[in-house]
C-alpha cells in the first residue's frame, strides 16, 4: 500500500465520519421542527421522522459533497480540450449501490409498518387475517381491540360532523353539542367522523393525526391525547370557498376538568354558534359591487350548547 492510497482512505473516512455526525445532529433537530407532542401517537411518528431525517441528511450530504468535490477539483483547465478517462461502468459498484437502497427501503418500510401498527388509529380489520398477534387496522371496522398502551377506562365516544364550513361535536352519552372539541387526557378516545356535504379532513397537527371524512360513510378514528392544552383542528381536505376558515379549538384537559366541562355544557341552552364562513358570506352579499364569483352558500350556523 502506498502512502497516497492510505491518505485517500483517511480522507474518505474522515469525510464519512463528519457526514455521519452532522446527519445524527440534524436528525436530533427534527423534533424541534414539529408542533408539541400532544397525543401518544405523536411520539411514535416523531421518532420515525427523526430517523428518516437522519438517513436523508446522510444521503443528501454524501451526494452533494461528492458533486461539489468533483466540481471544485475536477474542473477542466481553460483550453484543455481532452477527454476524461473512458470509464463505462463497474459491475461491483453498481451491484453495491443497487443493494444498499433496497436494504434501506426494506428497513424504512419495516419500521414505518411497525409504527403504523402501534398507532392503531382505527378499529381492527375484517379484510385481512394474518397470523400475527397484532392485526392490521381498517377504516370500515366496527369492533375495537384495546391497544396495549391505553388505560382500562372505557373509551370516550364522540360524533364529529363536518360541513361547509363548520365542525360540530356531539357527545351522545351526555346529549351535548359543541363547536369546541373537548377531550380527556390519557384516555383513548374514539371519534365517529361524518360529513354532510363534501370531503373534509380531520387534522390536528399537534396530534400528528389526520383522516379524510367521506360523505355517506361513518369513519371510526381513535387516538390518545396526552398533553393538556389548547390545539387547533383544521380541515385538511380542500372543501370549497371558505376552506381556510374551517377550524375549531381542541381542548385537552385532565379527566376531572373534562367531566366538569361536560356537566357545565349540558346545562347550557342551545344557541347558534358564531361561524366565520357564514359571516364572511353575509358581508360580501351586502356589498353593492360584488367582487367575488358566486359561491356555495355556507351551511346554517350550528345550534350548540357550547361554542368556544
Amino acid at each position: 500500500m502506498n502512502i497516497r492510497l492510505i491518505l485517500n482512505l483517511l480522507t474518505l473516512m474522515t469525510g464519512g465520519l463528519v457526514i455521519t455526525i452532522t446527519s445524527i445532529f440534524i436528525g436530533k433537530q427534527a423534533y424541534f421542527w414539529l408542533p408539541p407532542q400532544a397525543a401518544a401517537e405523536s411520539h411514535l411518528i416523531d421518532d420515525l421522522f427523526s430517523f428518516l431525517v437522519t438517513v436523508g441528511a446522510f444521503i443528501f450530504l454524501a451526494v452533494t459533497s461528492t458533486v461539489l468535490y468533483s466540481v471544485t477539483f475536477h474542473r477542466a483547465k481553460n483550453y484543455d480540450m481532452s477527454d476524461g478517462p473512458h470509464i463505462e461502468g463497474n459491475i461491483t459498484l453498481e451491484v453495491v449501490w443497487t443493494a444498499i437502497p433496497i436494504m434501506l427501503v426494506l428497513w424504512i418500510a419495516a419500521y414505518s409498518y411497525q409504527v403504523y401498527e402501534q398507532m392503531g388509529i382505527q378499529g381492527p380489520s375484517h379484510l385481512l387475517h394474518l397470523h400475527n398477534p397484532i392485526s392490521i387496522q381498517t377504516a370500515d371496522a366496527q369492533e375495537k381491540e384495546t391497544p396495549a398502551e391505553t388505560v382500562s377506562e372505557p373509551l370516550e365516544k364522540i360524533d364529529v360532523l363536518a360541513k361547509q364550513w363548520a365542525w360540530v361535536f356531539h357527545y351522545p352519552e351526555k346529549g351535548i353539542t359543541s363547536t369546541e372539541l373537548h377531550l380527556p387526557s390519557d384516555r383513548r378516545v374514539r371519534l365517529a367522523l361524518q360529513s354532510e356535504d363534501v370531503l373534509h379532513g380531520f387534522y390536528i397537527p399537534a396530534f400528528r393525526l389526520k383522516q379524510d371524512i367521506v360523505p355517506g360513510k361513518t369513519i371510526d378514528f381513535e387516538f390518545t391525547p396526552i398533553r393538556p392544552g389548547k390545539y387547533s383542528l383544521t380541515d385538511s381536505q380542500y372543501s370549497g370557498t371558505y376552506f381556510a376558515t374551517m377550524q375549531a379549538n381542541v381542548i385537552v384537559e385532565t379527566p376531572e376538568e373534562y367531566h366538569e366541562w361536560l356537566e357545565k355544557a349540558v346545562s347550557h341552552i342551545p344557541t347558534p354558534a358564531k361561524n366565520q364562513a357564514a359571516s364572511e358570506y353575509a358581508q360580501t352579499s351586502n356589498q353593492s359591487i360584488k367582487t367575488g364569483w358566486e359561491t356555495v352558500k355556507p351551511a346554517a350556523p350550528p345550534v350548540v350548547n357550547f361554542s368556544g
Partner: protein
Amino acid sequence: MTNISLEITGESHHHEPPTHWKTYFTFSTDHKVIGIQYLVTSFIFFLVGGIFAMILRGELITPESDLIDRTVYNGMFTMHGTVMLFLWTFPSLVGLANYLVPIMIGARDMAFPRLNAVAFWMVPVVGILLMSSFFVPGGPAQAGWWAYPPVSLQNPTGHLINGQVLWLLAVAISGVSSIMGAVNFVTTIVKMRAPGMGFFRMPLFVWAVFSAQIIQLFGLPALTAGAVMLLFDLTVGTAFFDPSKGGNPVMFQHYFWFYSHPAVYVIILPIFGIFSEIFPVYSRKPLFGYKVVAISSILIAAVSAIVWVHHMYVSGTPGWMRLLFMVTTMFVSVPTGIKVFAWVATIWGGKIKLTTPMMFALGGLIMFVFAGITGIMLSSVPVDVHVNNTYFVVGHFHYVLYGTVTMGMYAAIYHWFPKMTGRMFNEGWGQIHFWLAFIGTNLNFLPMHPLGLQGMLRRVASYAPEYTFWNVLASLGAFLLGMSTLPFIFNILISWLQGEKAPDNPWRAIGLEWLISSPPPVENFEEIPIVISAPYGYGKSEPLTANLENHATLIEAE
C-alpha cells in the same frame, strides 16, 4: 462522402430549415417545427402560470385573506396547477422530445407526422378553453387541479357552461392529445431507428422518452375516463361520483391518481434523460453504467403503475392497502437511486466545464436528491398521515417540478439552443439566470417544509399568524423566481435574432444530432446514418457512424 451530402443538403432549397417566423404558425408536419411550436407555446403558458403563482404568494404574504377574494384565490390555485402541468411541463417536454427523438435515432421525422401536428394544435385549444373560463359566470374552476368531487360537482351559478365544465373539457382534450403523442413516440422509437441503432445504442434521452410515453399509454385513458365521467355527473346528472345520489367520490380519486402519480414520472423521466445527455458532455466522460441506467427507466415506468394509492392513505383506505402501497412507492427510489449514483460517478474524475446547461443540470440534480428524500418521508404511512395535504407536500413536489423539471428543461434549452437556432446564447446572461433561479427556487420552496411540519395546510387563502415568517420568505422567493425568467427571455430572444453563428457541434458532443448542420435541414439526414458504436464514447476515439462524419475527426478539425 459526408461533407458532400451535407453540402447538397445546404444547396437544395427544399431541405432548408424554416427561414421565416410565419412557418411556426402553420400546420407544419416537420417534427422540428412542431417541437419549437410546443416549446414556445408552453413557455408562454409557463409565464401565465407563474403570474398566477405570484398572485397566490402575494395573498399569502400576510395571514389574512386581504388581497383577493377567496373565490378568486381558489380559482387561481386551480388554474396555476392546471396550467403548469397541462400547458407547461407536459407540452414543453413533448416539444423537446419531438425535436430531438427523431434526430437522435437517425430518423427523418416522426412515424405519423400529421398526427403529430394535430396533437400539437390541440394544446392551444386547451389553453384557450382554460383561459376563457375566466370570462364565464362564476369564473374558472375552483376545485383544485385534482377536481375531487363532490366539491367539483357543486355548481353555485347553476349555468350549464361554467368554469368546471370548461376545465374538464380542457383536461379531456389534453388527454387525447397526449395519447396521440404517446402512440407516435412509441411507434417512432420502436420502428424508425437507423440501421445499427439497437436498443442499447440509443441515447438515454430516447430511453427516457420511450419509458415515459409507455406510462402515457396505460395511464392517460384512466384520467380521461375519470374526467369524462365527472363531466357527465356535472352536466347530465349521472351519479358515478356523487355521494348524495349513491355515487362514490373516492372512486374518482382512484381514476385520477392511477394516472396522475405516474404522470410525475412522465415528466421526470425525460429530465433524467436530459441529465444523462448533459453530464457526459460537460464532464468529457462516458455515462457511467449506461445499461443499468437505461433499464432503470423502464423499471420506473413499470413500478409507477402501482403507487397511486399513496395519495390516498388518509382517504378511508384500508390499512393493508396503505402498507402495500407504501412498499411499492418506496421501491421507486431504487431505480432512481441507481441513476443518481450513475450521474455522480459520471462527473467524478471528469474534466468538468461549468457552462450554463451544466450548471442547470447540477443544480437540478442537487434539488432532485432533496426532493427524493422528502419523497421517501411522504411514502412512509405514519409520516404521511401527519404531513399529507400540508405545505410539506407542496414543498416536496415543487422541488420535483421546479427544482428538477424546470431546471432540467432550462438545461436542455440552453444545451440544444445552438442546434435548434443555429446561434449561440450569451453565457454571462445564462449564468445570471441560473443563480437567480437556483436561489429563488430554494428561497421559495424550502420554507414550505417547516410550514408543513408545523401543520400549515395547502390551498388555504388565510392562515394562523404563527406561520407568517416562513410565508414571507417563500413569497419573496416566488417573486425572485418570477424575475429570474427575465434574463432568460432576454437572452433567448436577442441570441435567436442576432447571436453569434453556432457551429454544428459547439460542445464537441457525441450524438447523431451533432453530426448534422445547425439548424438541421428538413428531414434531418440526406443519408440515413449507419450507427456502429454505443453513445457517449468520450475518451475513446471511435466513430459513431459508418457513413457520416465521425466524432473523432470532428474534434481534430477543431
